[in-house]
């Protein structure tokens, strides 16, 4: 009874702060059409980029970009989903939903990075792996599974940045890293809020509630110990000032490369195993 009359207006005016963004707001920012894409990072962050194509087995997946890149003087292997900016591009790159050959291309390039002794930088931004009949036929599950296995023992530093949407297995397929960083307004989830809502709430419109319950924001994932670093974004989100946003990501990547290069490779791989094997141990 008493609760309904405790401290009315007084408290409200004392906290004159804008309400914090909720999980669903952040999902909208993570999917914002103006948000920097991997092509923006290549343009603004890399002084050199040599694109490499193909999985040497079936084809070249345009939903997955990869190649040698120079970031602040550091030579790395850059991989990541390519969403496309315009409608034509989005269709050409399948909205950043990679097919098995995309994951196999990424793995091929990561193995090459291991061979050449350069770090892997993986920029994750995908609604998920492509759920198509042809993707099933060519082994979407196997392609992702193999990447998880191989990345866990890759003998070179792996730096992962969730830049926008970290959509389930399609994200994780290139996200087993020594350092997993998330942009402030990025999300990373086992299932899309819409998908979760339509299964557990039997109503896709309950996505905001699902987003909240799934704890998919960078801040939540930092608390859960999944995101090692949260990279700040310019006020209002990365789309308001792309160069500034990319610069912050570049700085964060270079700091990680510097740290991880100090570790002897066996120790690095051991640390990665310890990191992932401890997740979900209570």
């Amino acid at each position: 009874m008493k609760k309904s009359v405790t401290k009315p207006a007084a408290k409200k005016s004392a906290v004159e702060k804008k309400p914090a963004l909720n999980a669903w707001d952040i999902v909208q920012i993570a999917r914002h059409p103006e948000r920097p894409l991997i092509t923006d990072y290549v343009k603004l962050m890399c002084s050199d980029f040599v694109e490499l194509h193909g999985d040497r087995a079936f084809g070249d997946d345009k939903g997955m970009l990869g190649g040698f890149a120079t970031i602040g003087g550091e030579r790395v292997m850059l991989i990541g989903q390519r969403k496309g900016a315009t409608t034509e591009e989005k269709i050409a790159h399948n909205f950043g939903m990679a097919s098995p050959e995309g994951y196999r291309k990424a793995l091929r390039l990561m193995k090459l990075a291991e061979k050449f002794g350069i770090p892997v930088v993986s920029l994750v931004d995908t609604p998920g792996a492509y759920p198509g009949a042809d993707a099933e036929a060519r082994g979407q599950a196997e392609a992702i599974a193999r990447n998880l296995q191989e990345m866990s023992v890759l003998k070179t530093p792996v730096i992962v940045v969730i830049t926008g949407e970290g959509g389930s297995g399609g994200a994780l397929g290139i996200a087993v890293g020594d350092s997993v960083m998330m942009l402030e307004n990025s999300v990373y989830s086992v299932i899309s809020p819409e998908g979760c809502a339509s299964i557990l709430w039997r109503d896709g419109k309950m996505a905001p509630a699902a987003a909240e319950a799934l704890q998919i924001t960078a801040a939540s994932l930092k608390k859960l110990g999944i995101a090692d670093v949260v990279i700040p974004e310019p006020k209002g989100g990365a789309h308001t000032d792309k160069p500034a946003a990319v610069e912050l990501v570049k700085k964060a990547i270079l700091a990680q490369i510097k740290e991880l290069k100090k570790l002897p490779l066996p120790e690095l791989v051991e640390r990665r195993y310890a990191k992932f094997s401890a997740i979900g141990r209570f």
Partner: protein
Amino acid sequence: MAWFAKVDAPLRVASDKIWAVCPSCKAYVPREDWNKANKVCPRCNFHDRLSCRERIALLTDKDTFKEINAQVSFNDPLKFSDLSGSYAEKAKGTVAKTGLGESVVTGTADIDKIPVVLGVMDFRFLGGSLGSGTGERILLAAEAALKAKKPLILVCASGGARMHEGIISLMQMAKTCAAIARLKEAGLPYISILSDPTTGGVSASYAMVGDLNLSEPKALIGFAGRRVIEQTIKQKLPDDFQTAEYTLEHGFIDSIVDRSEMKAFLANVLRYAGF
């Protein structure tokens, strides 16, 4: 009670005790025959789901299975609740109903006198979903196999990741694959048996990276759900899509083995691996 009132009373015949209905071809089979055939349909050869205990009894030498890490159980890291209530309550109910602590039971056993580490998933436990307890049990099983230099065998039956555990569930895919990668680096065999169904996050992790991937006739195996794919490509999919036979045809399954022959098959191939 007047005799005419009884009309509304349901006929109380425990028909499921007398008849089993094949989930695939809908044939009625006497329950006794069905159980005797290890839940394999005599008409269409569909291999129906087994509980983990039934599976263990079929695959291992009598009384050799010893469960390990039974103390590892389900967790609720997100304090998740949805329309139907809290995940913790749901999971507790499942534990009480099935007598299982998680969706996989792991242990050591002999298969035709070959000592192995065996993990068997049980679809009755929240659809065999991959939770943190599941991932931890599988990781510990792989580590036990590594330590004892034994082969690891996992029987999968799962709808995929357990979304009630959010990102922690997703990470179990990476965690289990990392443990299996170490087994392989040590030269130890890992055999995955994809039983009906093996889909989503489980197919996209430990289920698909076996040195041998085996399956049973007509098992459902796939990454994305049929409905999602049909909505994506706006086409109806053929009936045999995502079956074990389809998966073998496309090169991701080594062999489809009848349930009655699986134990002998495992023992035989393990001998090729030097056991």
